[in-house]
């Protein structure tokens, strides 16, 4: 299990690095999917199979599909790849690089000062306990998230509503039906 954990962690880091450095948007997204999958394996080895499964279903399986969907429709070509590559010039890396190093430094100090690290091969955390936690101590956050999702649902329904004249459409449909007698029997 430990080997699996470290392998998955290395894959996750490497894939994430490629997400940043890849010039082709779709390839970058594919690396992001690989990264998410390896994070799922990391969850699994840490004893959270439920979270791992949800990570794959929700993030890799649904949200990233929508990302790929949108990027596919943008009709990216060789020019955009070249432009992307020009944006990835070394001097652009300086700012984010410094910030990243600071973050890693903070993380390293925090770990060195002996935070609890958790351990691989702990008892699996199953759906029952997750449900108990979510609807116990964290019920307020769950409800708030539900509000946000409901709001998003209403907005989506509003944006996607059909303004066409229903009566007019029925008339057209009836006319079409008359042209093909016996079509609907």
């Amino acid at each position: 299990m430990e080997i699996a954990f470290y392998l998955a962690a290395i894959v996750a880091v490497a894939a994430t690095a490629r997400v940043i450095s890849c010039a082709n948007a779709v390839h970058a997204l594919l690396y992001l999917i690989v990264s998410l999958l390896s994070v799922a394996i990391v969850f699994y080895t840490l004893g959270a199979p439920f979270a791992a499964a949800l990570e794959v279903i929700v993030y890799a399986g649904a949200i990233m599909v929508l990302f790929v969907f949108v990027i596919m429709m943008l009709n990216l070509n060789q020019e955009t790849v070249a432009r992307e590559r020009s944006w990835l010039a070394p001097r652009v890396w300086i700012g984010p690089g410094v910030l990243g190093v600071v973050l890693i430094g903070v993380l390293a100090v925090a770990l060195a000062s002996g935070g609890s690290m958790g351990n691989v091969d702990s008892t699996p955390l199953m759906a029952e306990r997750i449900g108990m936690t979510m609807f116990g101590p964290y019920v307020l956050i769950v409800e708030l998230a539900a509000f946000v999702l409901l709001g998003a649902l209403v907005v989506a329904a509003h944006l996607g509503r059909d303004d066409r004249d229903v009566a007019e459409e029925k008339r057209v449909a009836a006319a079409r039906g008359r042209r093909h007698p016996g079509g609907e029997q």
Partner: protein
Amino acid sequence: MFGFSTDTLIDFAFTAFETIAILLAVVIAAALLIWVERRLLGVWQDRYGPNRVGPFGILQVAADMIKIFFKEDWIPPFADKAVFVIAPAIIMFTTLMAFAVVPFTETIGVVDLNIGILFVLAMSSLGVYSVILAGWSSDNKYALLGGMRTAAQMISYEVFMGLSLLGVVLLAGSFDLRAIVESQAGMWNVIPQFPAFVIFFIAGIAEIHRAPFDLPEAEQELTAGYHTEYSGMKFGMFFVGEYLGIVLISCLTTVLFFGGWLGPILPGFVWFALKAGFFICFFVLLRAATVRPRYDQLMAFGWKILLPIALVNVAITGAVVVAMA
């Protein structure tokens, strides 16, 4: 860390052997389905179907395989080569991975995962990438249209599939497929969960985009949809992947709603094969009998009919389970 005892080695060898045997059997069954489907379609269309190669034409599969192996494996120059090559492998991989958690009998089965159903759902949701990436990397209008249709169709129907399974999970109190089968010893899930069964089966058809929900590859409008540019063995992988999907959905229906290997007199494996075979034949019958809906009809059917039924089913099942407890 590396100090294996002989016991673990034997264990490991046995598990590896069992895994390979099961996966081989599944792939061979999927390949034979090509012949079974053509013969059954022949029966239902008042004709014979392939009956020349071998007894009853059963070697037609071998002939098809030889033909497809010797076809030119062509990658269009305008395609995104890496993605183009990976795409057909994904569908084979994810579908075969999903078979890992299917319990065929009390003893046969690759692994008993305590998140069995979620694993199946995760694999089927990863299967979307195969089609969507194939559509995109082909750099072809029809392929792209097919890929986009698939993305919308599969994401939508995954929702109903997951929701319909919640009722079964509630009744069994576990995500483990083996535990779900064992919980059906008294009564098959299809009786208390009939709406869930119907929704699962319809969503399953849409998930592996078989007729009548084969809009991603609708021949009349999209030539062949996402695999327009594919040929040779890469096309063969899509082809076998589709049949693997049929076997998978049939096995899952058997496991989740029809008591898996449970049944009187006959041994468990025979019961399982009979039940799964029945659903495989039903898949072919659906292809022979039904017509393809329009795209908006497909989506409206999913979101306006299947989703409310699935939600009501979950709510009622939950209420009953809580009341009984």
